[in-house]
């Protein structure tokens, strides 16, 4: 299990099963597991996912290397509530509807990784772990995936990722005005107050965090923690 900053410098932060046990203790609302190496490895690590599902006392979402409805169904049947797709959603948006017809729209999450576009002052969507810039503006991407049947959207700000300086509120406002399905924002949360600020500014949305729950202190020592906001 790793944590990155701006999707770079992966830092090992521990064993996933152990992390799940800790988040159980901490009573986390929901856990998203993203396997960023799944594509290279040819798909989800079902063995690991099964162990995680048995251990978890909270709702789970899995993303990473999911390209077809059968994989998605298998993951749901293991005890996950939602499946996230990113690369596949961007390259073949029809897959969103195909997966939704197997597991239900509510369980299909599309995760969009974004960076500010200095030229347009909008946001561009990136694929393949932030390495490939899509010819796609974020708002257009949102509209497309929703039309295709996504039940939920996760918007991840690569620029803010790992910074722990707060969410990109401009981004959050832009997306939440446009989108009527449930959204979760990730990237930038450093403290509980950041989450409160996000919800105050933008209304009811999911506030997701990684670094905030994993790192402590200026030297980013690994300490998995969680405080109920």
């Amino acid at each position, binding site marked *: 299990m790793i944590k990155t900053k701006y999707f770079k410098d992966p830092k090992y932060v521990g064993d996933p099963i152990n992390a799940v046990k800790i988040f159980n203790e901490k009573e986390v609302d929901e856990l998203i597991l993203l396997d960023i190496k799944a594509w290279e490895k040819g798909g989800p690590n079902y063995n690991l996912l099964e162990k995680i599902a*048995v251990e978890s*006392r909270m*709702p789970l979402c899995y993303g990473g290397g999911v390209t077809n409805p059968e994989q998605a169904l298998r993951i749901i*049947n293991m*005890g996950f*509530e939602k499946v996230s797709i990113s690369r596949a959603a961007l390259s073949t948006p029809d897959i969103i509807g195909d997966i939704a017809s197997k597991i239900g729209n*509510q369980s299909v999450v599309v995760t969009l990784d974004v960076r500010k576009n200095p030229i347009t002052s909008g946001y561009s969507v990136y694929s393949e772990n932030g390495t490939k810039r899509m010819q796609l503006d974020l708002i257009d991407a949102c509209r497309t995936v929703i039309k295709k049947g996504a039940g939920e959207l996760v918007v991840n700000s690569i620029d803010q990722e790992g910074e722990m300086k707060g969410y990109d509120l401009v981004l959050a406002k832009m997306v939440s005005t446009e989108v009527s399905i449930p959204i979760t924002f990730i990237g930038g949360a450093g403290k509980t107050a950041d989450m409160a600020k996000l919800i105050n500014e933008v209304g009811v949305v999911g506030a997701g965090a990684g670094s905030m729950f994993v790192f402590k202190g200026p030297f980013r020592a690994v300490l998995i923690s969680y405080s109920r906001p």
Partner: protein
Amino acid sequence: MIAIVNYGSGNLAAISNIYKQMNIPHAIVKDPVALANATRYILPGVGHFDYTMRTIKKSGMFDALQENVIVKGKPLLGICIGMQVLANSSEEGDCSGLGWIPGRVRRIQAEERGVRLPHMGWNSISIGRDIMGLFKGVDETLGFYFLHSYYFDAVSTSSVLATTDYGGELVCGVTNMRNIFGLQFHPEKSHRNGVIVFRNFALI
């Protein structure tokens, strides 16, 4: 020994794991003979009403459960679809339910209530007459994790164990006030509150 009934439905392993960590004897069971040896039963679940009822009826489970739960009075806890099959029937399908708690399973009236389906996420609950103490120690405000589009419309208010608010009051717990309990939400996905319910059930 608590039998977690396996009719092909979900989250068996997660429930089993919770009892394992509490050191409470349990087993995942599908064989009717093995069912007879249990002291209490859990009907878990994710799935479709008809499929679940057909599986229960097909494999001899129905007779074993009828004998042990209705005749012998052993405790039973139904979760999500496991709660819904306790009803007489469901709008979701054509099969008749077990009919152990009078009621009909209906689709949540999304338009009238001004809500989206399914009801998915954490929600607080309001505990009613909990004579048997299934919810003793539960934090109502913290609530439980829900994921459903249908709900149990009980014939009698005396069957209602708990309600939640989703665009208005919605039944989320039923009981026959003796040995049968049904919960719409997922205790196995609801952290401490869920563990408390599983423990209380083991002690009833």
